[in-house]
């Protein structure tokens, strides 16, 4: 059957072109025949090429390199969001955070003066006050001594900042406060307090409150 298409230089074929292979063989041989350049000359040539590249618009390749390195990636946002959530919630620190909160509370509570009252018998009531700071003199004032800070000084007991005094009191209800160093008025944070009527807070104690 005759070929319907007529090719002017013959029909194309997939067979290799032996003439090209022969050329390549000759080129390789001539390249190998060249003398090996000295290392210094190679470095000089490389430096010259790089210097020329830098002088004739090296900014573009560098810019492209920078852009390629810091191009925003889709996962950056996800990573930032995850870091934020974990940093805020800190799920692994639940117990530790609680301990820290308790410690802060304990420190705050310790900063307040606390005391106690105890019936010592024989109609005497013992007042104790523990101060968070040092004091030179502490006195108790109240209904029972006419609110006179010179009448009932307290004695320091030990080195833990506790001051004590025993006051003879008949049954009844009394209001009292503590005066530190003759100028600062304090109340026991844990004892019953009366509402501030305009003078400042004060404690209340009940002697022989029986049913």
């Amino acid at each position, binding site marked *: 059957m005759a070929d319907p298409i007529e090719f002017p230089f013959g029909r194309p074929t997939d067979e290799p072109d032996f003439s090209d292979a022969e050329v390549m063989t000759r080129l390789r041989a001539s390249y190998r025949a060249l003398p090996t350049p000295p290392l210094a000359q190679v470095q000089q040539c490389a430096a010259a090429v790089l210097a020329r590249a830098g002088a004739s618009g090296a900014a573009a390749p560098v810019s492209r390199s920078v852009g390629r390195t810091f191009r925003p990636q889709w996962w950056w946002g996800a990573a930032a969001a995850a870091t934020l959530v974990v940093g805020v919630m800190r799920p692994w620190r639940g117990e530790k955070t*609680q301990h820290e*909160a308790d410690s802060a*509370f304990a420190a*705050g*509570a310790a900063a*307040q003066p606390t005391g106690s009252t105890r019936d010592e018998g024989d109609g005497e009531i013992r007042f104790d006050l523990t101060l968070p700071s040092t004091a030179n003199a502490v006195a108790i*004032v109240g*209904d029972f001594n*006419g*609110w*006179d*800070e010179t009448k009932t000084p307290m004695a320091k007991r030990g080195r833990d900042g506790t001051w004590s005094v025993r006051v003879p009191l008949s049954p*009844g*209800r009394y*209001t009292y406060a503590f005066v530190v160093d003759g100028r600062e*008025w304090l109340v026991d*944070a*844990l*004892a*019953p*307090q*009366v*509402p501030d*009527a*305009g*003078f*400042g807070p*004060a404690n*209340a104690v*009940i002697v022989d*409150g*029986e*049913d």
Partner: protein
Amino acid sequence: MTLTGAAWLLLAQLASASPAAGVMFAQSATSSQQRMAPDDQALPSAQQRQQIQFDAARFDSVTANTLRGLFEDAVELGLPTRPLINRALEGSARRMTGDRIVKVVRELTAALNEAKVALGAGSTSDELVAGAEALRAGYDARTVTAVRATRTPGSAVTALVVLTDLARSGVPTGTAREAVTSIAKLPRSDEALLGLQMAVAKNAQRGPGMALDALNRYVRGTIPGSPGLSAPTTTDRKPVRPPDS
């Protein structure tokens, strides 16, 4: 021969006056007799006259005279003057101005009178003072009356003092009233009430929510079979851990 009012007053002053006491005010015998007679309840008139004696040297003359008038008014109303005098001395010790001392004493007189109405005529001086402070803490007269009724015939001082302190600790007044009236009916309730006050005061330092939770736990533990108090509407934060017992 009977002693006149002036003689009784002079005798009382001589008995109680000390060199450091300063100037004691002498009531006009006739005026004190006229004023104290109608509302006098249980105390002898001589004791009532003694009530008005106070260390006037701790006040300026204007303040002292004003205070004396207030004390006389209190006697007229049948109110105890010792709490008023103590309050005035407290103001003097705290180095308050005369105007403020007079203002506070006048307010306390009004509060004592209101407490007397709420607690009844048979109330003691301590009960009146405790009731006046409960009223000033934000409780209404009906609450004070209800607390007093739970302690009949005993003293309501402890119950009123604890009631007042619970409000200071941040416990809602309705919840505090419910807790105090429930515990006050128990035997040896004064100890239980003071225990309630201590438990709440300890936990109140950690926030009002903690105080309320401690109160509920204490009531449940004190009153056998109690389901606890009704939960009030509050915006307090939730407790972060069980309160201290």
